């Protein structure tokens, strides 16, 4: 492995922020808008205050270090028979520190055959990605993973 030295000031542009402003603001700067919910409010809105269990049945795959915050891959897979009697009703993807914590709400049916959903999201900075899962019996499961977002590079 090559020695990694931080070559400061080698590259021109002054502040990293100037050229690589995240396209969405972090929570503290979020415009006040009824549709824009922070993570706790968003989770409550989805669960109606019901209990949420952290579960190993929910596999959440995100990069440990995201090369950029504009396109962060997210994969969710929930162990489920996906039958009429027992299936994944919805997978909600959220980002803990985005101004609007909600990314996508996916309503599945048994025809999907797998409790699976993948997409790519914007992350305004280092934060947790959360998969909130609703099962057909009305219960909620959860998995969360931290993503370190690097905002930098040249060119």
């Amino acid at each position, binding site marked *: 492995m090559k020695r990694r030295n931080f070559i400061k000031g080698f590259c021109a542009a002054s502040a990293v922020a100037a050229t690589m*402003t995240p*396209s*969405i*603001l972090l929570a503290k700067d*979020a*415009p006040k808008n009824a549709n824009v919910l922070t993570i706790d409010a968003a989770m409550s809105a989805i669960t109606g205050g019901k209990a949420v269990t952290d579960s190993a049945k929910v596999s959440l795959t995100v990069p440990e270090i995201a090369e950029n915050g*504009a*396109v*962060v891959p997210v994969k969710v897979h929930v162990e489920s028979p996906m039958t009429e009697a027992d299936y994944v009703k919805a997978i909600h993807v959220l*980002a803990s520190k*985005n*101004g*609007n914590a*909600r*990314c*996508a*709400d*996916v*309503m*599945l*049916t048994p*025809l*999907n*055959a*797998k409790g*699976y*959903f*993948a*997409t*790519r*999201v*914007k992350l305004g900075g280092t934060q947790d990605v959360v998969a909130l899962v609703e099962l057909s019996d009305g219960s909620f499961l959860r998995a969360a993973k931290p993503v370190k977002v690097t905002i930098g590079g040249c060119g």
Partner: protein
Amino acid sequence: MAEARKSMIKFKPKKFKVGDTIKVDFIVIHPMETGTKKDKKTGNIKPAHYIDSITFSLDGKPFTTMKVWETVSTNPYFSVNMKVPGKGKVTVDYTDNTGEKNTKSKKLKPKG
């Protein structure tokens, strides 16, 4: 009717049989503007413009619906699974926050 927006539906694997579970991937060219970013040239905030709902249907019957937020990446990608019941047509209908509606279809052709 020519589609207003460019998009692609992909099935993975490309070759499959009746009863197989395949991946249905959908990519679409759309700015997914959050409404919080400034236009560098004018200095004005670019208005929010993003896909907010998607419905995947098989022969007209919805099997997956999605509510999408502006936090999804520009030129977004969505992927779900589907068990192949037989020949048919998969359609993806999507709407954005301006009310613009679009649709894309792909024939499901299982081998055997």
